[in-house]
């Protein structure tokens, strides 16, 4: 994925270089943007300001650590899918968000005739029992708003490189 444009912000060449160089993350040092600043020939403050601008338009969600689910003991990772009336979708999505434990929740299209679900919600747990308990809570939470649901566990990671902006 290259030559992308960002909605609401004109990214110049310097911004794009910063984005590409930060794909692997920041360095774990007292001043994590110093090396980058030297490399690009600008001040650290400028890097920080540009990153703040990218965050203000939502192109950056957060500056944080990503963890390995499995190492933290979250071995049961399931995608729950729900068939929800289109006019009740927003209500259902927001109720799931409020629960706090649903990490990703999206509306996606149905794909007739073989796919009849339009709300996707990822749930992580330290065991299948924990995930199943969470699913029961979700069913109660959006009771009356959905027709049917299914739970799809991942059984193997076939690839996990993340989104590549270069190449």
């Amino acid at each position, binding site marked *: 994925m290259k030559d992308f444009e960002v909605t609401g912000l004109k990214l110049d060449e310097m911004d794009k270089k910063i984005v590409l160089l930060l794909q692997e993350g920041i360095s774990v040092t007292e*001043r*994590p943007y110093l090396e980058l600043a030297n490399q690009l020939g600008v001040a650290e403050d400028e890097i920080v300001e540009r990153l*703040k601008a990218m965050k203000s338009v939502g192109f950056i969600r*957060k500056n944080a650590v990503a963890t390995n689910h499995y*190492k933290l003991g*979250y071995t049961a990772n399931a995608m729950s899918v729900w068939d929800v009336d289109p006019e009740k979708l927003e209500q259902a999505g927001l109720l799931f968000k409020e629960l706090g434990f649903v990490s990703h929740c999206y*509306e996606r299209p149905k794909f007739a005739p073989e796919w009849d679900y339009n709300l996707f919600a990822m749930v992580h747990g330290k065991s299948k029992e924990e995930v199943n308990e969470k699913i029961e809570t979700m069913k109660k939470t959006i009771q009356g708003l959905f027709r049917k649901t299914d739970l*799809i566990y*991942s059984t193997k990671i076939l690839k996990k*490189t993340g989104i590549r902006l270069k190449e």
Partner: protein
Amino acid sequence: MKFFSAQNVLNKKEQAIKTPDRLHSQIELTETEKKVLNLLQKDFGFEVRPFEGLAKKLGLKEPELLSMIGDLKERGYITRIGPFFNMDKTSGQVTLVAMRVPEESFEKTAEIVNSYVEIAHNYKRDHEFNMWFVLACSDKKRASDILSEIEKLSGCKTMNLPKIREFNLDLYLEA
């Protein structure tokens, strides 16, 4: 690389927590390390010197926190630290695609799918649709071209499910 082992310095009295090995997972984290992982999963914003304030919040010295983060990375608990970019705010397309792949050609199909740099991740799932991957491209045209190619090479249909609306995306896994 490590100039001192953080947990030895910080937690002489603190016992590493060991939980029973349930599904081949092993959790060996001190209470301080858990606090670090939990705090750093939340946005720490952009500052020239971000770890100074974070260390203060955790009751640590800045070098102690830095070495602890380095150690957690080395041990594989932290996979990355830095900005999370939101591709929905770009002209590119990020979509979820599912396929129904016969078991006998599963491996070959996975190879075909994974060969594209635009495939960000791919999971085998316990369902009639047994292969689910995320495709990220600069534009829709490239996305549909790749899906046509995959269909032609694998002989399996693809089900393209682009995101319509996002209600939540904040993965926080309490350590």
